[in-house]
């Protein structure tokens, strides 16, 4: 269960997240849509303190953090309860595909190396990249890198997986394989919060869609409600534009 109350983030005098409330049930798949610059990515980045929110309560699994008072331990606990998939993949450049997945298991979770390696190979098999286990990121295509990025996040066994526009940096030819992998993650009943511009993917995978504008959640509901019968005028305009 994920509970967010009053999450607020400012950059200087600009309020990027304005008092956000959000509940996500276990296994729920929530997709965030909206025009760029409306705080979608910042929402994800504030949930694991890649950007530090000014105020708000964040509860993820057994971790509860008051943003205004969060110390180093709180932040580490939140980060360990979440897994993040980056737009630009952000694989560790000095680690092979397999080592990228093992890193969190060994260094952060303290699991034995052999066990971590077995888990990494399992995950690589799921991502269809078992043959690339010993390749460094620089030798992989964008699509392959992002699949390793998702694998790295899957292996952690996090309460919440955050996807920050995972296909936006990809050449069109690689988008399909990454979305396929995300479908497979969804089948495992993983709780997911996804920022994406892939509307048909959102319609297909989401239990709920949030429409954000101006740092607020303006409208939310099932894909049928939000995409099929949008109420808010800004949402209607946005949907007309993305077609």
């Amino acid at each position, binding site marked *: 269960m994920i509970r967010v109350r009053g999450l607020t983030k400012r950059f200087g005098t600009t309020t990027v997240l304005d008092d956000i409330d959000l509940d996500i049930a276990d296994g729920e798949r929530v997709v965030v849509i909206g025009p760029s610059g409306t705080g979608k990515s910042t929402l994800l980045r504030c949930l*694991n*303190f*890649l950007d530090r929110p000014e105020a708000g309560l964040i509860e993820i699994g057994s971790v509860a953090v008051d943003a205004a008072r969060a110390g180093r331990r709180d932040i*580490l606990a939140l*980060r*360990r309860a*979440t*897994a*993040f998939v*980056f737009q*630009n993949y*952000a*694989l*560790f*450049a*000095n*680690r*092979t595909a397999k080592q990228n997945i093992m*890193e*969190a298991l060994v*260094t*952060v979770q303290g699991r034995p190396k052999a066990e971590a390696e077995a888990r990494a190979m399992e995950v690589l098999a799921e991502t269809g990249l078992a043959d690339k286990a010993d390749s*460094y*990121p*620089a*030798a992989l295509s964008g699509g392959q890198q992002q699949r390793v990025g998702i694998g*790295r996040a899957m292996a*952690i066994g996090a309460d919440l997986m955050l996807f920050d526009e995972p296909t936006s940096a990809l050449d069109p030819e690689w988008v399909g394989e990454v979305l396929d992998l995300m479908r497979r993650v969804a089948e495992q009943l993983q709780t997911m919060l996804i920022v994406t511009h892939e509307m048909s993917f959102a319609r297909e995978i989401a239990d709920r869609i949030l429409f954000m504008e101006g740092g607020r959640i303006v409208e939310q509901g099932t894909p049928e409600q939000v995409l099929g019968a949008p109420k808010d005028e800004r949402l209607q305009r946005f949907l007309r534009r993305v077609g």
Partner: protein
Amino acid sequence: MRALDLDYMLGLVPVILGYVPLTMFMAVVAMVCALILASLLAVERVVRVPGLDWLVILFISFFRGTPLLVQLFLFYYGLPQVVAFLTQINGVTAAIMGLTLHFAAYMAEAIRAAISGVDRSQWEAAHSIGMTQSQMMRRIVLPQAARIAAPTLVNYFIDMIKSTSLAFTLGVTEMMGATQKEASGSFLYFEAFLVVAVIYWVIVEVLSQGQKQLEIRLGRAFAR
């Protein structure tokens, strides 16, 4: 103009080569210590520990801002007069200390620049999986910074080897000190110093070959 005494020069080669181990010992020990110290200083400069920052800046400023020879004299001749436990300090130890601190100051700046050169996404990825600051530095950032800094650091090591010759001013008989002694016995200064110059040169050339190998090794992960 007289002819070079080639027989004397050839005879001198093995004598001076006998001191290569001491020279390399000082250079390697000082390099390892300087690398560790410089990494700590560089990390501090990047993450800015409150209360420590000004000390690090002062340290770097002093050891970059004063000549190595002055620092060596300060350690060997000066410090024992004011710090009791240093009265027994020998020339080799003082030289290693001086070289370590002096080169650490330079290398810290090179490593700091290299750390800044590591893509920000690497930090974020490390944070996102819940690494502590020190895990991130040790496992992700510093290894990548090492690749960026490697050519510069090898240059400092080369400079370090040559700078060990200053230890002879502290009474250490290393390559330079030995040559000086030999030359003052034979009066063949040109021959003697030419021999030692060539030996330093050869050592540095061998290292430069090693540098290429090192860069290939460190670059392996980044090859397409």
